[in-house]
């Protein structure tokens, strides 16, 4: 029933200390596609992403993960404080059989791609701004040339221009190599720019409130299209319901 390389979750349910946070999540992400998980904070997006990536075993349900080289950008940067930016990117490559010099040169190249130059590469995390740390984390993930990329609010600490640039980088990289991307966000415009399909999580425990698809190919989405699409989606009853609890506090 499943095509080659499809990430499939069925009936995924999970609790923390007796409190159910995810309930009956069904989800398919076909190879090379981009799926956005959208929802208010606390709706279980991070938990679902960790389950999809195999970092957390759900209480119930099953997940097929037909991939070999997953890469994460976590909600927190999670950089080693005792390693420089370059050392941190190289650390992500420790699982690949590469010579040390090869690792470092890959790390340097990837840092340049996320806009961090020679001078930034030798800084320690406590010397980097929040946005720079996020970009180091992104570079660490992209550097391993993953077959699936799991992004948890990867662009949220960045200012608008930079965030657009990084989104572009991920999109191009994913398209070029046919990477499957699952990205978690609470930002509708991010979802509309990048995703082929969007699932909206809402409520406690989190359930899938609605599913959307965005049909125009990502590279053809201009600002006008994105704006119109955001307006269309934001007007949907299901979306308004999903985000209502956070709006009213």
């Amino acid at each position: 029933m499943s095509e080659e390389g499809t990430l499939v979750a069925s009936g995924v349910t999970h609790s923390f200390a007796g409190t159910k946070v995810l309930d009956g999540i069904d989800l398919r992400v076909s190879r090379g596609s981009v799926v956005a998980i959208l929802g208010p904070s606390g709706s279980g997006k991070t938990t679902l992403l960790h389950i999809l990536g195999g970092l957390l075993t759900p209480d119930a349900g099953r997940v097929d993960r037909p991939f070999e080289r997953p890469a994460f950008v976590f909600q927190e940067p999670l950089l080693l404080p005792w390693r420089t930016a370059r050392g941190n990117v190289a650390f992500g490559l420790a699982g690949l059989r590469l010579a040390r010099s090869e690792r470092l040169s890959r790390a340097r190249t990837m840092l340049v791609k996320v806009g961090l130059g020679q001078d930034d590469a030798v800084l320690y995390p406590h010397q980097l701004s929040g946005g720079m740390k996020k970009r180091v984390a992104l570079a660490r993930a992209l550097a391993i040339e993953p077959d699936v990329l799991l992004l948890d609010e990867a662009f949220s600490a960045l200012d608008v221009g930079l965030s657009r640039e990084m989104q572009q980088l991920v999109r191009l990289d994913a398209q070029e190599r046919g990477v499957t991307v699952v990205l978690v966000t609470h930002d509708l415009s991010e979802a509309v720019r990048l995703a082929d399909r969007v699932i909206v999580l809402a409520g406690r425990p989190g359930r899938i409130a609605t599913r959307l698809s965005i049909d125009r190919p990502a590279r053809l989405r201009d600002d006008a299209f994105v704006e119109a699409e955001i307006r269309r989606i934001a007007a949907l009853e299901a979306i308004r319901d999903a985000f209502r609890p956070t709006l009213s506090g």
Partner: protein
Amino acid sequence: MPRISWRRLAGGERRWAVLGLGAVIALWEIGHRVYGDFVLPSPLATIAALGRLGASGDLWPAVVTTARDALSGFLAATLAGSLLGGLAGRSTPIRAMLQPIATLLIGVPAIAWVVLSLLWFGGSGLAATFSVAIAVGPVVFAAAVQGTRTVDGGLRTMARAFRVPFGAMIVDVYLPHVLSYLLPALGTALAMSWKVAVMAELLSGTGGIGDGLAAARAEVDTAKTMAWVVVVVALLLIVERLVIEPVRRYFETWRHGLPGEAA
């Protein structure tokens, strides 16, 4: 590396250090004037006694023996303590089993270990090494447990997510953090090692500074006793400076300016 520390010390800290040391020597001299040669020989007389020890050829072999006893015990304690501590930090059953034992061992007075190990190992050089290792090991163990337990769970998850091999996990995720707990403990452990080694030598009479102290006591030679004390302290300071301090400085680069870490 030492150059950095001297420059920083010269900024004013060093002046205070010299002042403190000067005060001790002044008090020593005053004590000497008040109580006389027998109770407290003057600093100069102590230096002279030290010179005689050197000239007689007793000094160097004693230093070598004590260093061997203290450092071999310290090394054994460090290896066993950090290995077991690391395991105990990661595994609750192992921790539950080992922690009470460590507490028990810490409770035994060092001098009791000396007596026991003399009974067990007799006059062989092993008695001092064993006493040091068993007295100091639990201190290292406790620090290693604490360090391993407090490793950032997020970083562990991250390393797991990137499928980082076991060796890199230990070296890059655990070790730097654990060392921030371990290094201060190792400083304390090292100082303890010298004391216990000297104590064991004093009772076993198999050479070393402790043996020298025992001889000085038998000869009722206070100046010689003081000279041996100066030797132990000097040795301790030298090893601190040469071993512990450079390692500490190396691992401090990234900590400089971390929240909660005074720069």
